[in-house]
Structure formats: C-alpha cells, structure tokens
C-alpha cells in the first residue's frame, strides 16, 4: 500500500497535504504518528462520562490534526462534533450521532494507517 492509497482509503487528500508539507517523508512520519495520539481515547472516555468540556478539547485536537494531515473525512466529522460540543454543554440527542460518525471515520482512518504500516514493516 502506498501513502497515496492510504490517503484514498481513509478519505483524505494526498495532493493537498503534499502541497503544504512538501515532503513525503514528513507526511509519512506524521501519518504514522497519528496512531499514537491519545485524543480519540480521551474523546470516547469524556463522552462516556458526559464531560463536555474535555470532549470538546479532544474533538478540537482531532480536528486540528486532521486539518494538518488533510484527513478530510475524519476532519469534517470531528469539526461538526466540535461545534456541537462548544459551550460546555452536552446535548446527547445532537452529539451522539455526530460522535458515532467520528468513531466510524476514526476506525476507517486508523485501519487504513495500520494497513499502510503493516506494508512498510513487510518491505
């Protein structure tokens, strides 16, 4: 799996990120690093505990990372969730479906990156 294919699989824009970061090596480094970031776990935990403030921060961080990496699909999903959590109150009826989408996109994204990483390790 190439980096481009990985981007296609996770619903991101490889051309866009290459235009900005200008180095395949750097992009690869940050993409792999994405898996180490704990924000998604923090988001899940905060949603479960009903801690809207923490959930907002975590979702905000995910959004920022996705923007930087041009992970468009997850970025859009987390942006919407971020907005619904802004202000520190948790409106479950509103937020839960958005959170479900973030979960879904996060799985897609992390699956793609793991597949990409597995390919690297074999090579």
């Amino acid at each position, binding site marked *: 799996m190439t980096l481009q294919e990985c981007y296609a699989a996770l619903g991101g824009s490889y051309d866009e990120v290459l235009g*900005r*970061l200008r180095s395949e090596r750097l992009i690869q480094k*940050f993409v792999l*690093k994405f898996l180490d*970031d704990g924000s998604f776990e923090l988001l899940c935990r905060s949603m479960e505990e009903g801690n809207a403030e923490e959930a907002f921060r975590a979702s905000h*961080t995910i959004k*920022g990372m996705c*923007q*930087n990496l041009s992970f468009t699909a997850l970025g859009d999903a987390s942006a919407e969730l971020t907005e619904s959590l802004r202000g520190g109150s948790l409106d479950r009826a509103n937020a839960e479906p958005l959170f479900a989408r973030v979960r879904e996109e996060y799985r897609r994204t992390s699956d793609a990156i793991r597949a990409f990483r597995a390919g690297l390790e074999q090579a």
Partner: protein
Amino acid sequence: MKKEKILIVDDSEMNRSILTDMLCDGYDIVEAEDGLQAVATMQKMRAQLSLVLLDIVMPHMDGFGVLETMRANHWIDDVPVIIISAENSSTQVERAYELGAVDFIARPFDTLIVQRRVINTLLLYAKQKQLIGMVEEQIYEKEKNNDLMIDILSHIVEFRNGESGLHILHVRTLTDLLLGYILKKTDKYNITSDDISVISTASALHDIGKIAISESILNKPGRLTPEEFAEMKKHSAIGAEMLENLPGYKDEKLVRVAYEICRWHHERWDGRGYPDGLSGDEIPISAQIVALADVYDALTSVRVYKPALSHEKAVEMITGGECGSFNPLLLDCLREYSTQIRTALESSSIADAKDRKLQSITTETMKRVGGSASERTLRLLDKERVRNSFYAAITEVIQFEYTPYPPMIALSEFGAKKLGLQENIVDPAHDQGLARLLGEGGWEYLEERFRETTPESPQVRVDRVLSYNGASRWHRIVAQTLWTTDDVPRCEGALGIVMDIHDAHLKMEELSQKAARDSLTGLLNRGSAREQIELRMADDPQGHFALAEIDIDDFKKVNDQLGHMFGDRVLRELAQRMKHSVRSSDICCRAGGEEFFLFLDYNDQIESTVDRIYKNLCFEIDGRSITISMGVALSVTEGAFYDRLYRAADAALYAAKQGGKHQYRFYDESAMRDTLQGARRAHPDVMPEEDKPQK
C-alpha cells in the same frame, strides 16, 4: 550566528512536531504542551525568546490565559505571539488580537506560509526592538545630561531672541541627522553613537551667549550697524566662557562638547568665521555641523528682517556657498539626503508645534520603558540569570524561584535533578512530586511562611525533612520574598535555596541530647525533664498525669559502707528498673544525687500501677537490699502544672520518709499541708515566682 528561539505551545504533540519540522532548520525550538508550561518557560527564558506560536484550546491554561498573563507581566511588549489555533470563529480570533497576538496562522499548516509569517514577524519585531533600544538610549543620555536644564536654558535664549521655539529643535534634529549621514560617509571623525546623542543635546546650547547681548540688538528689525554686529558676534565667545566657568562640570563630556559648539559655531571652513578664525578640520566636527544646521534653519525660518525660504532654496544657497564655506563632505550629505532631511524636519515641526508635544512624547516613552521591563533590564536580568545558574552549577546548590500568579516553582537544573523533580512545577499545591518531597502539608506550611513575610522582613528559614532518592534527610530552606515598589507593595514571589543540613542537624541533636541527660544513668536531667513534662501537659491539659518523686533510702550509708563504685551501680540499676517499669513514652529523670522522678500518664487504676512500679524499684544487689521512698502527686487533684505537682510529690515523699521510709504515699492535701510548707522552705527553687522574696 545564534539562532533565534521560538516557543511552540500546543497540546497536540503532532501539531508541535509538524511545526518543529517546518522551522527547526532556521530556529531553535522550545516546546510546551499547555498554557501553564508555556508561562513557566517564558518565566525562565523570556529574554531569549524571539517568538511564540500559541494554540488556543488547551488543558490547564488556554491560549487566552497565556496572552493575559503575558499582558499582565508586559512580556507581550517584547515577545510577539502568533496564534496557531484550529479555531476559526472570528470572535475567538478577534479576542486573541485584542489580547495582543500579532498574527494568526490558520490550519492546515502550510510550510511556506508558516516560514514566511515567522520571518515577517521576527523582522518586524527586530526593527521595533531596535527602535525601542534607540529611544531608551536617548532617554538614558537625556537623563544623564540633565536635559531639562538645557531645555530651559535654551528656551530662555530663544525667548529673548523672539524666535518661534522651533529653532533649537530644528538645529538639534538637523545636527542629529547630519551626524548620522556623515558617519556613513567617513570614519575619520571617530564619532560613536554615544557622541551623536551628546552633540545633538549640546547643540541646543549653541546660542546661550546671546543672554549677554542687549535685546535691542538681538531683536532689531533692520540690518545691524558694524558696531552692533561686532557686539552680536561676541555671543559665541561669551557662551563658551559661561560653560568654561561652570563650577564642577568642566570635565563633563556634554559641557566640553557644548563649549566647542558655542565657541566655534560661527567659524567657517575657509577660516573667515569668528571668533578665532579657525579653518578646515581645526574646527571640531560638532561645531561644523551645528553651524550648518544653524544657517539652514535661519534661512528656512521667518525672521524679523526676512521671510522664510523653502527647503530647496536653502539647500541651494548653502551648497552654492552663499552663506559662507562649509566642509565639502557635509555639503555632500546635505545634497544627498536632502529629501530625508526635509521630511524629518517637517515631522519634527508638526510634533513640536503643538505646545511642546515632544516633551509629552518623551514622557510617554519613558513611562512605557519604565512600566514594562525594558530591553536593558531584560538583558541585565538575563545576565543575572546566567550568572546565578553558573554559580548554582558549580556550587551544587538547589535553587528555586516561586511565583504566586500563576502558582509555580522553577528549580535550578541541578536542583531539579537532585530532587528528582521537574524544573518547572506548576500548581505546587497539587503536585505529587512536591508532596512526596515535602511530606503532608509541607507546601502549605511553606506558603504560609511566605505569606507571613513583609517587605521589611522578607526572609524565611525552615528546617524540614525532605524525602528523595529513597532517603529522608534534614534540609534547611532559606528564601526571600520579592516585593513590588508600589505604594502598597505586592508580593511577587520568592527565591531561595535548599541545603542539606542532615549531618549538622544530627550532630546538634546528639549534643543537645547529651546535654539533656545524666551521664551516669542515661536518664534525663532535671531541666530537660521539666521541659518535656511541661510540653506534655500543655499538649493535653485535661490528661491524667502522675508525678512520682523517688529517694533511695539511706543511700549515704550504702555509699559509705560499700564505696562509690557500688553506689553508682545502685543508681544505674534503679535507673534501668525505672525505665522498664514504665512505657517508653513516659519520662524518667535523675534529678540529682539519689533523687529521681517519674512522670507518666494513665487512664485509671493509678494505685495499682504505682504499687507495681514501687515494688519493681525495691531490689537486691550483691545481697544488699535497696529500698526507696516515693511520693506521688496527680494532676487530677493538683492541676496540670509542673510546680504544683512537684511540690505536692515532694511533700508526699517527705511524709513517706517521716512515716519510716520504705513506703510510698499519694499526696493528701489535708494531711500534708504543713509538710508542703516545709517542703517549700526546703526547695525554694520550685516555688512559683510570686512566692519568692523580692530582692
């Protein structure tokens, strides 16, 4: 060249890492993962920071909090902040700008954009820093030169001359400009930037000699007669003489330069000026320049005898030699920088025309420089810090700084390593590492001690057991709180050191223990026993305490018959038995000779306890039977006062001896009152103060 330092503040490691990768080629990068860490970093190395890239949404302290802290401390004046948040709602961005952020880089980050924005901001601030530096330099010189006096003096002259008040300013501005230009052209005059400031300041004094010239000549509307002109010409020599006669200031650089300017600002390059007819570079460069500036301003100003000429016309006349001859280099400068000179003079007249606005600008600037930490102070502080950390490194001292807002402790590098803590401890009250080090409530105690200080007595000294590296050792913390110089001083924090005093402390303890104990038996002596008894009773005034006074029966006889060595063995044996008869927390004392006492607390059943103890303390040694007499007093009847207990126990002991020895008695007030009186007479040292005879 030294790389500039950039602080990147973002809670996402990846975002920091992306920015670091984008910038690490050209800059030194420092990272912080939340607002509190950022503030801590700035506190430590603010003077070295050139730029902060700041995220908004972060735990502990968000970006707005950082900006507010930077504003409150005036750091934002020196260190520019670029916001790098994924926030794109305009109100958030606006708020960041209002709080002093200079730029905003939206996500996603683009390598080229980030690099360009960073460079632009750095350039802008470098320029600004330079300007601030220049202004400060001038203000510093101004102060030193007592500029106010010069202003007053020169304005008196102007007033008498009927000039607008702008002349001095123009001459000064032009002098300043020309000096700058000539410096670019040649280095043969050895002019330093310091000299420029002194010469332009001194230029204001060029006409002070006119004070001695009659007003009728000074303000005569028409041409002067040859006699009047000769009189007028005297002003340059007179001015120089005035300066020369200034008592005490002759060697001041400013006065020396002003002398040159006063005396020779009417000399000409070709030697046809006055008063001395100097020519060429015999005329000091300061006077040459002021002469040119003087002529230029005379031409472009209205005078009683002529209208104002245009800048272009004046330059043309001067360079054409119509106003006497000048240094060709200076004329080149005038031609070359004509446009800049015109602009500068125009703006200086605007600034000044409105009622000495310059003065207020200067005041404003000084306020700014004085209110915030100026570059100069920052540099000094930085130097101080380097020096401190150097000393700290070579002397291996644990140093710390504490600030209450936001609450933070910064440890020296050595200190942090030694104590196994972070160099920056944010929120010390909730820091687990610090709690482990200082023990339960340790930080609160220290903080309380800081709070108790005043600007007059800012020192704090605390001895405490610190635990680190798996050991607990005595340390001394010596600190000094820092206060603002406001009318109502505010505590700004503290700095201090931590010393390991464990060995010295143990030594002291050992010594004081030795002093507190009887060397033969190892029991406490009377003084220290009394101290401890009083402490124990003060701790628990409602407690049930018993004091037993003990005397060995016929000890003198034992000593006489069997020798002192045997006597000592008896004393030691009794001491051992006393210790074994009571709990280790009870107090055993050899009060002197064969007199001992015991102090114990009890719950109930004191009679049986006393009986058991008494039996334990009568013994046989080498076939010789040793008995004691004992008197016991209880705090429940006598009160928890040492003197009273002691007197009562003494009276009871006396009764026991009277009753035939080898027995114990509890103090019984009705039976022993007389004995108590007797005991008082026998032991005046235990009488309360008010009972003692007055000397």
